[in-house]
């Protein structure tokens, strides 16, 4: 019977306290969006980073702030992979699932590895909650979980016991249960608890009672896991061989914001960030607004159009200027981006992509805005585009976006996505003194000044801001006469200006470094990626290479213009495979520009690629099967 079945899974290990060595573990925490799952995951991440493992995370939260408690739409998840080796993704499938309620179990159980560890809060497994997710019977008792090692824990009751005597409300006690669970996980995976204890102290410093309660819950969970002998033994994942230095954990959105502050410092210019709240880009506005001491001005505009309008105005005034949004916001900003192209002012437009079209999947990731940022404007309207590959790479690429924008006097797109923005990884903290300065080109003397007279090397026009005597001039969205910038409807001038604006953007190729090729310079298959697919592609290609397959990969950070060596690289392989979280947008560009018979591997589920999915794609090509 199911009852017996469950008990047999719980048979204590003959050698409790034994430590088993593991190379890598993937854990997913899942629960109601009010259960503090993101917080639990982030705390586990910090402790894991401090324990010296390499790691990667994937938060996955609902678009609703508080969907009805206990329902499937309200399930929030947080996955982390940590390892004693290099980690490039949050893991394909979790080895461990912590499910705080039946909804979390139902939404996530299909991903758990067979034989994986399933820790559930049995206190929430009642008929009321089963009904909310259409469980006809208690899944813990109907045999449906026999493929997994199920550990039922009375999380609510045990947390309550551990806090007995403290003058807490029932709700406050209930809110501590995630720390009880976290304490258990710390024992199970031999993590230090210090950073979480410190975090609790600082978070609740105004309420000593909550500090005590959460400390107690964390310790109680830890002690329970050790003494109750439910796990049998615990695990150790040794430190990863990581380059020495000072590290921190960072999400893509944090790295983007810090990169913008750094750009401010490196250019000596004040930063103007005009933005309108939108998921998943809002965190950049939140983070930047904390750093006004660096000369950062943030502006929550009345809409997306006002956000970019204020940014173009600030750029006209000589500030470092940026506006951040996601795809729907880019749609609204399109006309203004066209204006910025016409008036040739430097600004950066950040697009933290999400699932589309329209409102789409606000909290899920996708790469389906590439063609939008390349071509989604009226007229011939070229804009340089760069894309970050990992959360910490957001720091490098946002700096690059500013550098290009100022050097070439042009709006520049910086692409990130929900996976990069919210995902985190350890970051070797750069030495601020060694970051390259962002040079602001000087302007000619007023006698030589013409608003649209271009620099020969960059084709950039001079950035003469209002307030300078002798440089008074007018700019605008009407076609400009070459050199003078006066309004011109002359047909030949128009064609020449269209070509000049395109030529200027193409000049950026002179700044693009040689493309790194992972693997053989010639071979069977080249996997070409861009953006947040970096981790999955790299891990997959390394696995293929370990099997002796002639497979290489490149990852594009410059999407317009494309790297000058790209055509030569593509020509060295029999097959070109382009995995993208869209219907094949980079694929179209590559096929059009290089006339290569590249094929796409496309996933449009709002979820990042798994390593195994990329490997399967490569295998298919090697075996001559169609994808």
């Amino acid at each position, binding site marked *: 019977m199911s009852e017996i079945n469950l008990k047999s899974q719980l048979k204590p290990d003959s050698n409790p306290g034994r430590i088993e060595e593991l190379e890598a573990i993937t854990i997913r925490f899942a629960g109601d969006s009010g259960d503090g799952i993101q917080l639990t995951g982030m705390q586990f991440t910090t402790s894991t*980073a*401090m324990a*010296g493992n390499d790691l990667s995370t994937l938060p996955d939260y609902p678009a609703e702030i508080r969907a009805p408690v206990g329902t499937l739409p309200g399930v929030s998840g947080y996955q982390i992979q940590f390892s004693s080796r290099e980690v490039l993704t949050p893991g394909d499938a979790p080895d461990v699932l912590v499910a705080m309620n039946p909804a979390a179990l139902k939404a996530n159980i299909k991903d758990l590895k067979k034989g994986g560890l399933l820790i559930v809060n049995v206190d929430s497994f009642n008929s009321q909650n089963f009904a909310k997710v259409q469980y006809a019977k208690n899944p813990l008792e109907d045999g449906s979980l026999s493929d997994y090692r199920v550990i039922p824990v009375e999380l609510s009751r045990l947390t309550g016991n551990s806090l007995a005597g403290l003058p807490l409300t029932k709700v406050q006690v209930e809110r501590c249960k995630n720390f009880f669970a976290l304490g258990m996980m710390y024992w199970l995976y031999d993590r230090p608890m210090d*950073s979480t204890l410190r975090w609790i102290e600082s978070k609740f410093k105004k309420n000593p009672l909550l500090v005590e309660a959460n400390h107690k819950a964390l310790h109680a969970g830890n002690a329970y896991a050790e003494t109750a002998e439910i796990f049998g033994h615990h695990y150790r994942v040794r430190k990863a*061989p*990581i*380059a*020495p*230095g*000072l*590290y*921190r*954990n*960072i999400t893509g959105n944090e790295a983007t914001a*810090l990169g913008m*502050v750094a750009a401010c*410092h490196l250019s000596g210019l*004040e930063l*103007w960030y005009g933005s309108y709240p939108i998921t998943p880009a809002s965190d950049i506005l939140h983070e930047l607004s904390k*750093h*006004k*001491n*660096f*000369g*950062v*001005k943030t*502006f929550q*505009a*009345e809409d997306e*159009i*006002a956000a970019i*309008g*204020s*940014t*173009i*105005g*600030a*750029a*006209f*005034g*000589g*500030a470092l200027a940026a506006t951040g949004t996601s795809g729907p916001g880019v749609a609204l900003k399109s006309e*203004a981006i066209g*204006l910025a192209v016409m008036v040739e002012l430097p600004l950066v437009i950040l697009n933290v992509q999400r699932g589309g079209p329209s409102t789409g999947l606000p909290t899920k990731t996708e790469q389906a805005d590439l063609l939008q940022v390349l071509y989604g404007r009226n007229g011939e309207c070229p804009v340089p585009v760069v894309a970050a590959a990992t959360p910490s790479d957001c720091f490098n690429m946002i700096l690059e976006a500013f550098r290009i924008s100022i050097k070439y006097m042009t709006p520049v797109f910086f692409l990130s996505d929900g996976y990069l923005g919210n995902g985190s990884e350890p970051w070797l*903290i*750069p030495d*601020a003194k060694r970051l390259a300065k962002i040079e602001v080109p000087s302007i000619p003397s007023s006698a030589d000044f013409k608003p649209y007279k271009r620099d020969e090397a960059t084709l950039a026009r001079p950035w003469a*801001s*209002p*307030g*300078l*005597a*002798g440089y*008074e*001039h*007018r*700019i*605008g*969205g009407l076609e400009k006469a070459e050199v003078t910038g006066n*309004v011109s409807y002359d047909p030949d001038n128009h064609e020449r200006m269209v070509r000049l604006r395109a030529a200027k953007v193409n000049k950026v190729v002179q700044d693009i470094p040689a493309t790194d090729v992972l693997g053989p310079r010639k071979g069977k298959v080249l996997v070409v990626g861009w953006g947040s697919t970096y981790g999955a592609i790299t891990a997959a290609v390394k696995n293929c290479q370990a099997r002796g397959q002639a497979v290489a990969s490149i990852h594009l950070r410059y999407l317009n213009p494309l790297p000058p060596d790209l055509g030569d690289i593509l020509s060295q392989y029999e097959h070109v495979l382009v995995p993208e979280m869209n219907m094949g947008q980079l694929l179209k560009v590559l096929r059009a520009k290089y006339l290569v018979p590249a094929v796409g591997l496309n996933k449009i589920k709002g979820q990042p690629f798994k390593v195994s999915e990329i490997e399967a794609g490569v295998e298919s090509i090697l075996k001559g099967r169609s994808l």
Partner: protein
Amino acid sequence: MEEDITALPASGPMLSRKDFVSDQLVRWCPGCGDFAILATIQKLLPSLGIPREKYVFVSGIGCSSRFPYYMNTYGFHSIHGRAPTFATGLKCVRPDLQVWVVTGDGDGLSIGGNHLIHALRRNVDIKILLFNNKIYGLTKGQTSPTSEQGKKTKSTPQGSVDYPVNPVNIALASEATFVARAVDTDLPFLTEVLRRAALHKGLAFVEIFQNCIVFNDGAWAEVSEKALRDDTTLTLQHGKPLVFGKDKNRGIRLKNGFVPETVEFEPGKPPRDLLVHDEKAPNATLAHLIAHLERPYFPVPQGVFRSVERPVLHELIDEQVAQAKKAGSADLQKLLAGSENWVVRSA
């Protein structure tokens, strides 16, 4: 005029009107009301003692929005309806500049209505001139948000079904700190209103009745023609009763609580219960009431409806930056390091 001229930037060399005339051919239709407004501003600016390079004229799209091309200052002809957004960003990073926005009834109240409201409520230290001709001119004659109901235009051959908005009331409802109105045919009066707008610290909103000679000629004739305007307009003066008419023998008072009415009296002997204008009133109730005086029952008020002080956006932003600088040093390395970090030593 009570504003403090010393608050303005130090004066440069004496400038004249021609210093503000650009080399571009003015391309408005002959007889357009915009010519008079342009000439008025070109004449006014040199008298303010502000260096020419400090002026920036920002506009959207429409006939009025060609204005920056004709001013020999810095200028930005942007996109339809969005001029206030460009001006906001510009002024906030460059408080030293004098930023003027030129817009029209279509640009400012239709496609750009949202931005207008928010610039007004934020009290951005810019001047917004809304040229109101009650028609779309540049797109060749369609109904605008200020066109009267029933107006026959190319897009409304049976007459417009939309009820018009009153720009002054939009500005007042958006908590603008300076709201005024003038007509393009009374240049001395327009000059004085614009001078006060220029000297106001904060957002100054001025509606200018302007004639479109091609698509809506005579739209304002009743209040703009010299022979009629004494009886059809009411000139607002702070602290003075609302009196109008060629013989100054008519006035506005309230009956039954809050309902305005016109009264006639013997010249020089106004009744004591006439409404007295107070542009400095802390709330805009009286200004709203006056702004609702409309033809044909009342004279059209012109002049300054409201002129109050409130902190301006760029100063509030700068104050927060200054506070942040006082509270924490700008140490980039410390910021990058974050609060939780760890050292990995070489194996």
